[in-house]
């Protein structure tokens, strides 16, 4: 077995994803380069990949978020940018994680809406979402009402 020598030790990499009418991935990239101060920035079709020391990345990410806070989303990435082990060109197809992100991108507009609404509404006053663990069956009294409503 071959010995493995890691690169980019001590760095973190983050995806900065933008889903906005006002800010394009290109705008994000320009701003990113402006404030990068030596950190590595790679622009992609969905946003940026930022690599650097944790505090540098944190600073850049915070700076970028201010551009459109409700439409910019950030998550960690295990690999440095352009790593051949995860590159679509080398794998022949997207890494499996990509499809998970593809799925969440379909939900992101609702999250954005939530973030925007909560600036106007008090979060404590918003009703709790339905508990997914509560799988109770239809209450018999409600069922009877439904049947009666149908029959009348």
């Amino acid at each position, binding site marked *: 077995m071959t010995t493995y020598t890691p690169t980019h030790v001590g760095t973190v990499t983050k995806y900065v994803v933008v889903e906005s009418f006002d800010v394009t991935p290109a705008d994000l990239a320009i701003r990113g380069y402006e404030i990068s101060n030596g950190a590595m920035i790679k622009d992609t079709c969905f946003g940026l990949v930022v690599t650097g020391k944790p505090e540098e990345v944190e600073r850049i990410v915070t700076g970028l978020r201010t551009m459109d806070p409700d439409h910019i989303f950030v998550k960690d990435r295990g690999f440095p940018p352009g790593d051949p082990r995860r590159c*679509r060109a080398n*794998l*022949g*197809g997207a890494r499996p994680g990509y499809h998970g992100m*593809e*799925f969440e991108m379909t939900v992101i507009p609702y999250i954005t809406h939530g973030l925007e609404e909560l600036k106007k509404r008090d979060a404590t006053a918003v009703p709790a979402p339905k508990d997914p663990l509560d799988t109770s069956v239809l209450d018999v009294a409600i069922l009877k009402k439904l049947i009666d409503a149908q029959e009348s």
Partner: protein
Amino acid sequence: MTPPVRIAQISCGAEYSGVQHEIDDAAHEVNGEIFFPDIALKDIRRDFDAFGLDVRSPDLKLSIARAKALVEGRVEADAVFIATCFRCAEAAIVRNELRRYIHENSKLPVVSYSFTERTTSGTLLTRMEALTTIARRRALLARETQQGITLGLDSGSATTKAIIMKDNKIVGTGWTPTTEVLKSAHSVIETALAEAGMTMKDIQAIGTTGYGRFLVGKDINADLIQEELTVNSKGAVYLADRQHGPATVIDIGGMDNKAISVMDGIPGVFTMGGICAGASGRFLEMTAKRLGVDITELGPLSMKGFGGRVPMNSYCIVFGTQSLVNALAAGSTREDVAAAACHSVAEQVFEQQLQEVDIKEPVIMVGGTSLIEGLVFAMGELLQTKVVVPHHSQYIGAVGSALLASGFIREH
């Protein structure tokens, strides 16, 4: 250099078992290249629903969608490698169904495998080699008659065999238990040459197969060094004279067993394995030794017995031998014990491997163990068919090599 054979990987768990690079390495070694069929989320949703196998694991859903993309030609590939974790029931169902689906709906050669964290590229090499050969060398495998004078050598884990063929006929044979690989090889070649009345100068092309194929092939300057899955398939349908249409080839070897689903002499789906030596020729060898008979006498002996009278399950060679000893101590006859041993091996192969290929008649049994009539009988009973054992079946790899090697004569 020819471009690599594009092998589409459909899998679940390989990266997390730490064996993905073993798969990549095995493919690379035989000029293959692993890739993952590229599809989009909408394809996954649509194809998973359309396929109708409602599994929970997302990566298995992805596998199903990737298989559909291959069959429908949306992604191009030369061959398919399906791999999932050993002992995962959900994945085993998907692996089997996808293997069947791809085999029935496309011309792509498929091999399926269940790995553990201990799987190495060495284990996968023979399978990958067969996969790339089938994908790339269809012309070579299309050969139906032997021409000129050729030598085929099968350096197996238990025995070494040589065959000399001339104008589509076997003219010399050699057989010996494998001790030192090269020494055994040279000894069987000498025997075969003597029987044929020839010298090495008369030989126009050489083919080698079996575990020692690379070592021996290099030593005797072979024209064709080829794994035993494709070679044995060719040899089997050639000797059984079933070169056209479907066939199933079963080879219970000394170390591992092969079950190959063949169409027109070319393997479509195959499995190779044997988790434990209990389901191998070795167990029958041990049985013969314990019963005090030569392995050649085990077959006739077992035909006189009735296996049902002796409880035996040779899933493990140690426990198998234990039940054998117990049965003899309890007063069972040697005949019944011999029959039970044969049935046990046949049953293990049936349960562990034949489920992974589609059994289509004729079923051809080859390899040294095919000479043990009790084993052939037991297999026939399990499969409810008459099993074909061609002449020279114990020389199958050597015959296949000699046959395929004649394709190289012109190059001299």
